[in-house]
């Protein structure tokens, strides 16, 4: 029921001044956009409050404008709500690929830089799975001892080839108990011909630490060590480490890892067969019951005379010291000499 005719408020509100002209579209648009002058705005408001037609136009046009704005806003919000593009992902992939390629090239170059004529000990070093191993330098084989003597200990240590499994380990002592055949058959495929009862012409390479303390470790224990631990120990024990071998002529030689081998006991005519190292204690034994002992890592040597009851000459095949003072020497005929005072007395 339409009761508006009888409501005084409605009647009064609906009473309009229809004699005024309607504002044009421009003015209505400017009114809704707030672009009118203040006086104009009041005039338009007065007209709108009395003109239902203009109010209808204004309301419908404003609603259409709001719908457009809402659509635009929702579009913008939709765009904002999308997950952000990971623009860094392609660049990170490219960087990672480049790193992988560069690493592979460096490893390949390092492998190619390893000399083919390096000692057997270098092969052992290469087998350790770590790129931090210092590779043997490409020093000329004819480099004299003068250049070697000018090198500092740190330089020497940086050129060491064979990392020791433990700073307390005397590799030679352990290895000397093994025949070369057993070493060749080992699961590691070690190619070092550690000399024990080595036939003539075999090369024996030994590495000795400069550490004083003594608990020894078996070779198998070294093998079972983790590579990381072995490398850590090797880096610690690398200082002043010397390498020992007996060349094909049966002459003992020493090297500090620079590829230069220094002849030890050059005047010795007998053929040496075995080298044993415990800290700075170095023992070299060979034919004619020749047994040399050095307490200063090979700087000075003493010829040890082993007691012999039958007067025969023995060929020393094994030297094994549990400590710096106590050890055993065994000849190829089974004769065993035992000392507990660093070689001063033998039984």
């Amino acid at each position, binding site marked *: *029921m*339409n*009761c*508006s*005719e*009888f*409501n*005084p*408020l*409605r*009647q*009064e*509100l*609906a009473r309009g001044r229809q004699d005024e*002209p*309607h504002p*044009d*579209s*421009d*003015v*209505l*648009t*400017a*009114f*809704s*956009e*707030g*672009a*009118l*002058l203040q*006086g*104009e705005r*009041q005039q338009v*408001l*007065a007209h*709108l*409050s*009395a003109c*239902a*037609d*203009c*109010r*209808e*136009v*204004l*309301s*419908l*046009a*404003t*609603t*259409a*404008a*709001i*719908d*457009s704005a809402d659509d635009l806003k929702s579009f913008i919000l939709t765009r904002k709500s999308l997950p952000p593009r990971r623009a860094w992902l392609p660049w990170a992939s490219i960087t990672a690929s480049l790193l992988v390629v560069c690493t592979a090239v460096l490893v390949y170059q390092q492998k190619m830089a390893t000399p083919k004529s390096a000692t057997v000990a270098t092969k052992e070093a290469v087998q350790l799975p770590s790129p931090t191993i210092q590779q043997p330098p490409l020093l000329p084989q004819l480099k004299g001892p003068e250049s070697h003597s000018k090198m500092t200990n740190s330089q020497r240590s940086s050129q060491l080839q064979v990392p020791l499994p433990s700073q307390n380990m005397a590799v030679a002592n352990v290895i000397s108990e093994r025949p070369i055949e057993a070493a060749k058959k080992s699961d590691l495929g070690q190619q070092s011909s550690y000399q024990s009862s080595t036939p003539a012409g075999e090369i024996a390479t030994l590495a000795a630490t400069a550490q004083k303390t003594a608990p020894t470790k078996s070779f198998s224990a070294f093998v079972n060590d983790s590579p990381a631990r072995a490398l850590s120990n090797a880096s610690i024990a690398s200082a002043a480490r010397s390498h020992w071998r007996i060349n094909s002529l049966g002459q003992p030689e020493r090297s500090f890892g620079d590829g230069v081998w220094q002849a030890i006991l050059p005047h010795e005519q007998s053929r040496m067969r075995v080298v044993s190292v415990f800290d700075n204690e170095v023992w070299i034994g060979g034919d004619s019951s020749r047994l040399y002992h050095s307490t200063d890592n090979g700087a000075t040597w003493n010829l040890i005379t082993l007691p012999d009851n039958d007067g025969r000459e023995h060929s020393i095949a094994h030297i094994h010291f549990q400590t710096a003072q106590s050890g055993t020497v065994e000849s190829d005929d089974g004769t065993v000499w035992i000392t507990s005072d660093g070689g001063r007395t033998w039984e």
Partner: protein
Amino acid sequence: MLPCPPNPATSVPVEDRGLGSAVSDAIAQRYSESGAESYGITPQDFQQIVTAVVIRYAADASVAEQLELVATLRIGELILARACTEGNEHAWNVFLVRFRASLYEMAYRIAKDEATGRELADGLYAELYGIPNREGRRVSKLNYYMGRGSLEGWLRTVLTQQHINRCRSHAKDVSLDEQDEAGVSFAASFPAETAETDDRVSIAIAQTLADVTSEERFLLVSYYLDQRTLANIGHQIGMHESTVSRKMEKLTKELRRRSRKRLQDAGFNSRRCDELLQELDVRDLNVHVTENLRQERPVETF
């Protein structure tokens, strides 16, 4: 049908009504930003176009208001419209790129029907291009654009006016059969009730409403008579919905207080005043009972 404004190009004798030098300088300063040069409009023509607008809307205003009007004009769109009116091809290309798509989109939104919207937009587009008059001269509807608001807003308003006119003209064309079938929509109104209204109430209400400002009256009629939403009213006058709500609450309380006082002065007691004011809830008058029971909108008493 809503009346259309007269053609300013023919109704305003610009040459007879000059502006101050300050206003002319202000107009000249806007030449560079208008893009008139790209449409081949000389500074003299530009001055004449803008002067016509100023004279049309602020001929009797102060210089400050004229300067404000010049500063607030959408000068670029005004020159574009004039260039299109003159048939400038470049201007039409710009217009089509900027407004053709939005013109059709606005028509769809206003008509809420694609076919009707397209028909509406096509009709306006033809008028914008120009319809030959009696002398055979093509007259574009863009000539009515004065740059007071945005050109897009003006197009929207024109579309709205044409849509309303179209609906009203079509409503008049409804046949008697359709009216019978339509039933309630075209039903004859009930005979007026012979309720007696005290003249003192009408006088009090009229005196109370006479004191309100134009904006307050617009709020009242939009809300109580047109039953617009607060958001729609706010958009029309550039206010936030909450601001309109606060204004309405404050306004109704004040009007109720004034009306009550006037009614008491007219000889009504307090109880009768409350009854009369309760009956003045104009918004509740035409609401059906079922809708009233939904309680979607709290019953607001005036």
